[in-house]
């Protein structure tokens, strides 16, 4: 056992001194570092298209007053006009500018999507997480029971009741109603997810570190669910946008605001098809589909985070 032959220039002659070079480790380790979430999402062509499309809609929503040629509720134009220089897409039966309505409609859809998705996700998160973490206890039983009930209750009559009860029917109400009627499915998914995470050693380890239950749930486990949470947010937002339109189509929307849903509703109620105002009827539905599709595309990207199998290569 000799180390005599081992004398490279400047190298210490003690074998034990061959230590891991920390710099080196950091460098090589960086190759196994998970990709940043944004680059994962961006890597998907679909997600890219989705992000850009949604971005465009967001810009339109923000700059609606500058983009739209007119006030969407201004009914001073001649009704039933075809497309013209001043009314790019014609006017409604009430003499409102269709193009401006479409532009401003973006706002409602996006706001509903953002907040409806957010609230539903938060509810789902809290209930799903707590119930999943407490799996097998009475708390889980209670929360699962509530979730199950919420899952089977027919949404439409419930929404009608809720909406009918409030004297004001602003976007806030719509968001609220959508949120509280749509969290249950996501809560279930989160419960299932947390049950698998809960049995990971790092959770037990956190207990040994003296962490309390809530801290374990929200500080230890939740950060590991970001992709699921993100996916369920995008999903919930998508659902909320659709639901707003659906509500509006039933005549339960916020009629003080122009949204694509209320446009659909108004145009149908005013017999737009029969009067040949096709743009008025079909454009909002098409825009809705485009926006929701774009968001689904974003979700394709988000899916890649939690499910690397799906990554394109």
């Amino acid at each position, binding site marked *: 056992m000799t180390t005599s032959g081992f004398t490279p220039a400047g190298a210490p002659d003690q074998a034990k001194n*061959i230590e*891991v*070079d920390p710099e080196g*480790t950091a*460098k090589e380790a960086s190759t196994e*570092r998970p990709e940043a979430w944004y680059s994962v999402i961006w890597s998907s062509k679909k997600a890219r298209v989705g992000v850009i499309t949604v971005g465009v809609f967001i810009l339109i929503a923000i700059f609606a007053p500058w983009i739209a040629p007119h006030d969407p509720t201004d009914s001073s134009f001649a009704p039933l006009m075809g497309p013209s220089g001043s009314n790019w897409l014609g006017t409604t039966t009430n003499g409102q500018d269709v193009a401006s309505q479409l532009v401003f409609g973006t706002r409602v859809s996006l706001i509903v999507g953002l907040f409806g998705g957010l609230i539903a996700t938060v509810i789902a998160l809290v209930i799903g997480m707590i119930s999943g973490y407490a799996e097998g206890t009475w708390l889980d039983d209670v929360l699962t029971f509530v979730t199950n009930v919420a899952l089977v209750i027919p949404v439409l009559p419930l929404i009608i009741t809720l909406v009918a009860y409030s004297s004001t029917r602003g976007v806030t109400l719509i968001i609220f109603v959508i949120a509280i009627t749509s969290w249950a499915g996501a809560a279930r998914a989160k419960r299932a997810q947390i049950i698998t995470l809960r049995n990971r050693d*790092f959770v*037990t*380890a956190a207990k040994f570190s003296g962490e309390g239950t809530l801290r374990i749930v929200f500080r230890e486990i939740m950060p590991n669910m970001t992709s699921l949470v993100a996916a369920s947010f995008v999903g919930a937002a998508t659902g909320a946008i659709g639901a707003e339109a659906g509500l509006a189509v039933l005549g339960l929307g916020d009629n003080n605001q122009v949204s694509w849903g209320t446009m659909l509703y108004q145009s149908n109620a005013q017999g737009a098809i029969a009067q040949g105002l096709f743009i008025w009827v079909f454009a909002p539905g098409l825009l809705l589909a485009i926006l929701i599709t774009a968001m689904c595309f974003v979700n394709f990207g988000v899916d890649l985070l939690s499910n690397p199998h799906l990554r394109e*290569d």
Partner: protein
Amino acid sequence: MPLLDMQHLSVRYEPKRSQALTAVQDVTFSIGDGEFVGLIGESGSGKTTLGMALLRLLERPGRISDGKILFNGNDITHLSQDELRPTRWRDVSTVFQSSMNSLNPVTRVEAQFRDVIEYHTKLRGEAVTRRVRELFEMVIIDPKFANAYPHELSGGMKQRVNLAMALAIEPRFVLLDEPTTGLDVVVQHEILENVRRLQREQGFAVLFISHDIGTVLNLSDRILVMYAGRIVEEQGADSILRDPLHPYSKGLLGSYGDPRAETVQITYVPGRPPDLSQRPVGCNFAPRCPERIERCVTDDPPLFQIGSARAACHVAALQRLGGDGAEEAGSPIRTFAGPKFVKTSEESKAALRGEVLLSVENVSKVFERRRGLKVHRVQAVQDVSFELRRGEVAALVGQSGSGKSTLASMITGVDTPTAGRILFHGDGGAQEVAAFRGKNLRDYRSHVQMVFQDPYSSLNPAKTLGYTLSRPLANYKGIKGDAARAKVLELLETVALNPPERYINRFAYELSGGQRQRVVIARALAVEPELIVADEPISSLDVSIRAEILELLNKLVHDSNVGILYITHDLLSARMLSDEVIVLNQGQVVESGPSLEVIRNPKDAYTRRLLEAIPSPDTRSARTK
């Protein structure tokens, strides 16, 4: 003409979004009919990739970038899948690395035999059933399990079924990719015996992949050593044991010692393998090599033919073949000149005189499992008693399912015994662990900590090391802010993660397995516990890192006078670390006593079985002598 001839094969992974890497580079070797060849190398060295290339099952982003594969003289490198299909399984069959999952979970086992047999042979109907029974008997499984679903089989049985499947249509060549990884030592041993026996009987050729040189040496005629995508040494099994050429092979060989020896020592290869996406200058292994000479840093060594062997090492070549600078290389050494871990029998004697820290008294645990309407009772632990002293390491040894983890969770207060009691002798006198609730339990855990088996899952992937380590400090000691940071740095230093500032903000995925396990240990140390329960802390690590961790634990016992309960199914590591061994079989203690004594003179048959199961190069030398 060799059965398999691989010429200059290179495989590249070219993922769209990360750097391309060459996982297998310029690999040339051949295997003759009926030959048993072992392929070893540490994790990530490209063994599986090579196997997949050979099977032509590489999937995107992997592809064969160079070289060719000749099977029976036919070039199969670029055949299409359709052209390959008829010869698959007939020529080359396989058992996968993770073959726990390689059975279709939703169909019965027999059907999975049937489809391959019917596709490739003329057997039909009853004949197939008969053949399946025959195969089951061959691998020593009750043929009635042919009707079972995969999940109804134990891990060892699944693996044997896979083996049977691989042999179903009598292939000429079988690729075995770590067929026993993750299995219990005893089961592992049985399966490998099986493989060897069948190979002898049926004469098929085998390429056996493993990262465990012990098992490979045990079985193979010839060994291929792979490092960072290349073959670095090829030699007959007996000769490599006697005279390993490449320092890396020496390092792998050094990870075994004889547990019966008065003084055991094992070596380990420090550092991490290179980044495969970078083209290295000089020898790939040079940064980790204790024998390296100047030339290694500048020249990439080719695979030198040294006698009947081949090795990619300047030093070895110079030593054996002479040439310029031969004197710089010095004379050949058999062992790895790197860091080593030594255990003498002296140390243990002192440890066994410490004061009692934990006493386990007649503890039993029964689990009740509902399955449909029936309740199954599982006696996981039965009437177990032992004591653990300060400054002592007690090893709890037993095969899978013997109740080790159950005992650990009762000791740490996660579970409560159904009978008997566990007493902790802390500041407050002897206290019963099962009685701890809420705050008391938390308090107890500031004295008792746990090190988990899998360092990958016991660190939160979303948190930095600094956060992970500061939490117990904040919770138990109320240390926060700068003080906590200082303490965390100190802890990192204790577990030799130097310099600690570099590590404090890292995430677990930025560390190697060994480094991770150090962090896990550091976390356990944060609260300055009196007792550490380490549940198989090294079994998921590469052999070369194991010694590192053992050494760290050993240092701990000596420096901080803690008691460690070391749980393992591997008697060698028990011998390396522990002062006392408690052998557990089916929940019962079958034997216990000072480590060396138990290992030298095992009284119980079960202990002897465990001993036999230790895969070690030395058992081969014993056999071949």
